[in-house]
């Protein structure tokens, strides 16, 4: 895979993330699987690596200025997600790739429904979600 293609993919994902204010992982994982031919586990591990840095920090400052942040709930959520992520990672590594791919497919359909239904928050806040 040519490096320029990989960089371009990241750029395209970033634009979608910024416009829609959704997580990049949900787009990165299928892109790595279908465009790069990665195994489901490898794509998911690589996606988790990509979202380690706080890419949404710029967007957070916008929300912070508008006082649209519940700091206490955010910290609680971070702790819960850290714990849950460990459990989810353990489960995923133990599953075979085909079954994990099926489960991911089910989750994608569920996320697509959530994405479709979401009330249209003004995108002018420039939601850059990591």
């Amino acid at each position: 895979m040519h490096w320029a293609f990989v960089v371009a993919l990241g750029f395209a994902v970033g634009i979608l993330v910024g416009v829609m204010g959704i997580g990049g992982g949900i787009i990165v994982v299928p892109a790595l699987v279908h465009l790069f031919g990665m195994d489901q586990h490898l794509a998911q591990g690589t996606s988790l690596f990509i979202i380690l840095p706080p890419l949404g920090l710029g967007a957070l400052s916008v929300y912070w200025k508008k006082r649209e942040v519940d700091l206490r709930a955010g910290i609680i959520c971070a702790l819960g997600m850290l714990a849950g992520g460990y459990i989810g990672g353990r489960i995923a590594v133990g599953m075979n790739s085909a079954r994990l791919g099926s489960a991911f497919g089910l989750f994608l359909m569920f996320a697509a429904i959530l994405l479709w239904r979401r009330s249209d928050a003004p995108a002018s806040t420039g939601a850059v979600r990591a």
Partner: protein
Amino acid sequence: MPDSNPFAVFATACVVGVASGLFGIGGGVLLVPLLVLLHHFGQHRAQGTSLVALVPPTGLLAFITYYRAHQVDVRTGLMIIPGVFIGGILGGRLAVGLSALHLRRIVACILFALGAYEFLGPLLR
């Protein structure tokens, strides 16, 4: 301002975390609607709060689990990061002039089709 029950929020976040580790995603796509539906947050407040939750590397423990199992392509990941960051800023600016609703629905359709393909694919083979 919702007077959210911290234990209920924590339980919700744990569920989101399991999905995050299981599917290698950030979890915002799940956390935002759950904060709105279960904890009565406004859409903006849910998105802002989700961004706070994503500042610390919440996927770290999940990442380490994948890394130990040799399921991380660090080189490809490093090449994708700058694009996502720069593209995200550009996308945020584009959002002002673009119909985010239409774009989101187009992407929702693509994700749904992709999900159906991945779900049914192994069963059909």
